[in-house]
Structures are given as structure tokens and as C-alpha cells.
């Protein structure tokens, strides 16, 4: 695999405030890469820099080995789908989709052909004569996608394209978008604040926070092995327990936890020393709940403070003897339905993840 797009030390300021940077990443051929993060993290700024709508103050952007840092958007050969679709409201669907081809001086007969073929690809054949305002939100989005793809760009850019759709349609479009992307084999940069979207669609995810990259990883790595407190808390539910490093073995550490007891934890132990304050991370579904103490006596005793039924899962709030509250989620099967509030249980924290403790 080779990189289609590369950003090196890219930085953008808006007056005195930092918009984004410095950021480094690359997009591989055919890859679906997601920029994920809360609003204001710089993900849209980064996308605009890639598209050429903003020029960075520092760093370089290369596309297929060519330096395009200062190149204007009209010469970049990228297809961009906007959050609000940004269709031309005064043009028909045909004229919207044909726009990029006309700018490229493609012959009229070929334009007709390519527009109708692309509308078929996005699942909206035969709507050429309609006006954008006659279409539903989902249809407009497909037109915007067709308009971006018909120019056969070297890179497809998607700026939160699903966030204006209703929940059901959004879920369906995730799969369709991913399917179209894979069928065309087009390298794609997707911007979203929705971790479910990021996980379901992406090959790799770049997690961003206040203008910098927190972590670059596959969705699985990001969920199971976050490298920062922000990453752990932004992705899904998490229990974080204070602790102190008791000993180190390679990247793993034994941690004296605030719950009482010592736990082995994997993580970036290399940067830590014995006696350092750290956090132990456990996902709620990874906590084992037993109704009797385990044989080796390693389990933590706790009281069920609360139990919430949410369909296929039960969410337990558990209070340990040391007063720490943990959340555990378990399938709502008979085994767990029988665990009543106020009863005493024993917890197995299983695989803990070691995180640096930030102030």
C-alpha cells in the first residue's frame, strides 16, 4: 500500500487561537479513514485544509506525491460532501451532478452518461430533472455524494454527511456509504463526532482533541487499548480507577489500586516509574460479576447500589468497600436478572488497561 494523501506538521491558526496542529497522518490507497472528535477539535479545519478551502500556516500536504499545500481547491481533484450537502439550489439534480464535469470540459454526451451512471451507483436513478428542494434529506445526500464522485476524484472527503439524517436512515446510510466506498475503492476521509459511525465504517480512526491528534488506531485498538484518558472516555463507557505503580514488567505494570488489592495492567508502562500515579481502565462489559467469592480470593467485594434495565442489557452500579463506584453492563439473562439491588457480589476486573494520569 502507498499513501494517497500525506499531511506533515500541518498547523493552522485563526488569529491568536490555534485551529489545528501540528498534525501528521496519511491516507492509504482505498482506505476509509475517519477524523473523530468532539466539536472544536479541529477535524473540520483539517478536512478544509485537505480540500484546499483553508491554507495551513505551517506544514505540507501532498497528494500522490505532489505538494499541494498552496494549491487552490479547484485544482485539487477531490470530491467533498458537506454536512448540509450544499447542493446548488437553483440547478436541477442533473446540473448539480454535471457541474464538476462541465468545469472539466467533458463532452456533453459523456456528461449525460456519467451522471446517470453515478446516480445509479448512489441508488437514485432517474431523478435528473428534479430540483433539490423536491428531494428528501436522504436523497439530497445521495445527490451530493454523486456530485462528489462523478468527477472520479483521487480522494473523497465527507464532512459529517450523516448528521442531518434521522436515526434509521443514518444507520442504513452508514452501510451504504461504506459499501459504495469499497466498491469504488476510493480513498476516503470522513469527519464525524459520532463514535458508532467511526467504528462501523472506518479502516482506521484518528481521534482528535483540541487541535491535536490523540490516537491513530483501528476501531478495535481504539476501543480496547486507548492510550489516554481522553481516548478512553470519548469512546464508549469506561470505569477509571486511581492507582500507583507497584512494579513494572516491560509494557505491563502491577498497580496498587484505590479499591484495595493489586492488579496487572497492560499499557504504555515504558514511560512510567515505580510509585507513579496512574489510572486503571475497565470497560463495563468486561467486569465479571459473581454471587460467591472466587476460590483464589482475588475478587473485589461490592454492593449492588442500583440496577437499570435497558432492554438487552442490565446496567449495574456497584459500590466497593472502599467507596468506589463502578459501572458494569451485563446481558439481561436469568443469571444477572436474579442479582437484586443491595445484594453483595464479587467483581473480577479482568484485563485492566493502564493509562497515564493527566491533570
Amino acid at each position, binding site marked *: 500500500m502507498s499513501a494517497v494523501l500525506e499531511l506533515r506538521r500541518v498547523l493552522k491558526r485563526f488569529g491568536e487561537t490555534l485551529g489545528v496542529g501540528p498534525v501528521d497522518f496519511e491516507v492509504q490507497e482505498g482506505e476509509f479513514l475517519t477524523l473523530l472528535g468532539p466539536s472544536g477539535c479541529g477535524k473540520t479545519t483539517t478536512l478544509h485544509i485537505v480540500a*484546499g478551502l483553508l491554507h495551513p500556516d505551517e506544514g505540507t500536504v501532498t497528494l500522490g506525491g505532489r505538494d499541494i499545500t498552496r494549491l487552490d*481547491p*479547484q485544482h485539487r481533484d477531490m470530491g*467533498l460532501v458537506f454536512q448540509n450537502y*450544499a447542493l*446548488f439550489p437553483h440547478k436541477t439534480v442533473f446540473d448539480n451532478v454535471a457541474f464538476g464535469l462541465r468545469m*472539466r470540459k467533458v463532452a456533453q454526451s459523456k456528461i449525460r452518461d456519467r451522471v446517470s451512471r453515478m446516480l445509479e451507483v448512489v441508488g437514485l436513478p432517474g431523478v435528473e430533472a428534479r430540483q433539490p428542494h423536491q428531494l428528501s434529506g436522504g436523497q439530497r445526500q445521495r445527490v451530493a455524494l454523486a456530485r462528489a464522485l462523478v468527477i472520479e476524484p483521487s480522494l473523497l472527503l465527507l464532512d459529517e454527511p450523516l448528521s442531518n439524517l434521522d436515526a434509521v436512515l443514518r444507520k442504513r446510510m452508514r452501510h451504504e456509504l461504506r459499501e459504495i466506498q469499497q466498491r469504488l475503492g476510493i480513498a476516503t476521509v470522513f469527519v464525524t463526532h459520532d463514535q458508532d459511525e467511526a467504528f462501523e465504517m472506518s479502516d482506521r480512526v484518528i481521534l482528535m482533541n483540541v487541535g491535536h491528534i490523540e490516537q491513530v488506531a483501528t476501531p478495535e485498538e481504539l476501543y480496547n487499548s486507548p492510550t489516554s484518558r481522553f481516548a478512553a472516555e470519548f469512546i464508549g463507557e469506561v470505569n477509571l480507577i486511581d492507582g500507583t505503580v507497584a512494579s513494572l514488567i516491560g509494557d505491563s505494570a502491577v498497580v496498587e489500586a484505590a479499591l484495595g488489592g493489586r492488579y496487572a495492567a497492560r499499557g504504555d508502562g515504558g514511560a512510567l516509574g515505580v510509585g507513579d500515579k496512574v489510572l486503571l481502565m475497565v470497560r463495563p462489559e468486561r467486569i465479571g460479576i459473581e454471587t460467591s467469592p472466587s476460590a483464589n480470593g482475588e475478587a473485589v467485594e461490592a454492593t449492588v447500589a442500583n440496577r437499570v434495565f435497558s432492554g438487552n442489557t442490565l446496567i449495574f452500579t456497584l459500590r466497593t468497600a472502599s467507596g468506589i463506584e463502578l459501572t458494569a453492563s451485563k446481558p439481561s439473562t436469568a443469571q444477572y436478572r436474579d442479582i437484586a439491588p443491595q445484594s453483595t457480589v464479587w467483581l473480577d476486573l479482568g484485563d485492566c488497561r493502564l493509562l497515564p494520569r493527566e491533570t
Partner: protein
Amino acid sequence: MRAGGGIFAATLFTPITVLYLSFLLAPIGFFLVMSVFRYSPMELYIPAVTADNFVRLLGEEHYRNIIFRTLRIAALTAFFSLLLGYPLAYFLARTGSIWRGVLMFLVIAPLMTGVIVRTYGWIVLLGSEGTVNVTLMWLGLIDRPIKILETEVAVLVALVHILMPYMVFPLFSSLAGQDPDVERAAATLGAGRWRIFFEVTLPLSRAGILMGSALVFTLTAGAVVTPALLGGTKVQMLGQTIYDLVLSTLNWPFASAIAFVLVLCQFSIIFLYFKGGRRRAG
């Protein structure tokens, strides 16, 4: 709930409805009726149903010329206001400059001084010993003062200036209301600055162009003071003609007929504006 909303809406609309009925529709009805009356030097008017006033208006070359001149000046004023106002409105709508507020104020400022003050200002500038002539002579471009006052040019220049805010504001709001992503989308699809302007920005500001042009056209067509002071008797327009007939000659029926034609022209423009606006929406 619905009925309550209706009553509430009716309450909101009552004052303006009363105002319009008594001071706009009633006078229009009054001169519609008056326009078919017969003029009498002794009794002012004699109730009748006659087309004489209209026949005279359209039949006499003098009055036909006034109608054409009025329409021509109104159209030219709208055209030049658009030509000069569009770049200004575009700049105001797009700039992030701290000067935007100041420039907006400068656009509105002329509205705060009266039409008469501004018109006298133009007399000072355009007169035979005015700033324009003095400058041109000093530069050696002309030997003797050229006649600017009492020409259509003088009326046109002053009207374009005086009515500029009515053009700039509708343009500004239609340009500022555009989704910036639409222009960005055009850029990513390969359109340069000028293509974006002619393919996207300009057609999307159509409502503002129509609105501004309709406002300036109708206001010019009905202008009295500026044409009278800058154009004198040489550049007579409909508004001034009506004024003279009503107050000097006291020929109210004929004045009413002219007013009728003027209002008809203005309503046609407004009608065309709404028709144009609907076509865009449909």
C-alpha cells in the same frame, strides 16, 4: 389554539391594515374615480365618465415624452444602482473586516439626511461653478463649464446616489444569506472565482437583484424633488407633472389620470418582481 392564533394574527395586522386602507387604498380609489371626471376651470371638476384625460395623456406628444422619460430614467437609475451597488453589497456580505460596521453605516447615512439636503448638495457639485466643472477646467479637460444641471445625467447621478441604500440592502441580505458551503462546493468541483460568481453567487442573489431593482425603479418613477431641482423644466418627470397640475393648474382630473398611469407602471414592476420571485421558488 388555531382560532386564538388567528385572532392574535388579526390583532397584529389591524393597525397596518387600517393605515393602508385609509392612507393608501382610499386615495388610490379617490384618484381612480377622479381620473374619469371632467376638468372645469370654475368648479375644478365635474363628475362624469370620460376617457378625455387618458386620451390627452397618451395623445399629446409632450405627455408621452414625460411618460417615456420617466420610465427611461427609472430603468437607468435601477440599472446603474445595481451596477454600482452589487460590488459594494458583495464586499459587505463577504468581508470579515472590522470596517464592515463603518461601511454599513456609510451606506445608511444618506437616509438620515433629507432628500432635499442631498439634492442641494448635488447642485453645489454639478453647477456651472460647481466642484465638477472647476476640477475639469483646472485639469484642462474643458475650456468652459459644461452644462450638467438641467440634464438627465444630473438627475440620474443624484437619484443613483440617493436611492443606493434601497439597492444595497436587499442585495446584501440575499448575499449574506447564502450558505458559504455552496460556493465552497463549486470550488472543490473545479470552478474558479469568476465561474463561482456567475454560476452560483449571482443566480442565488436573484431575489435581492429583483427586490432592489423594483424598489429603486418605483421610487425613481415617483420621484418629485430631485428631478424638479436638478432637472428643472428640461427634465420633467411624471411626479413633478402631477405636482404642478394639482397645486398650480388645479386640474385634478388630469393629474389623477397621470397618477393612475404612474401607479399602474409601479404596480406592474412589483407584479413582475413577485412573478420572478415565484419562478425561482417553483
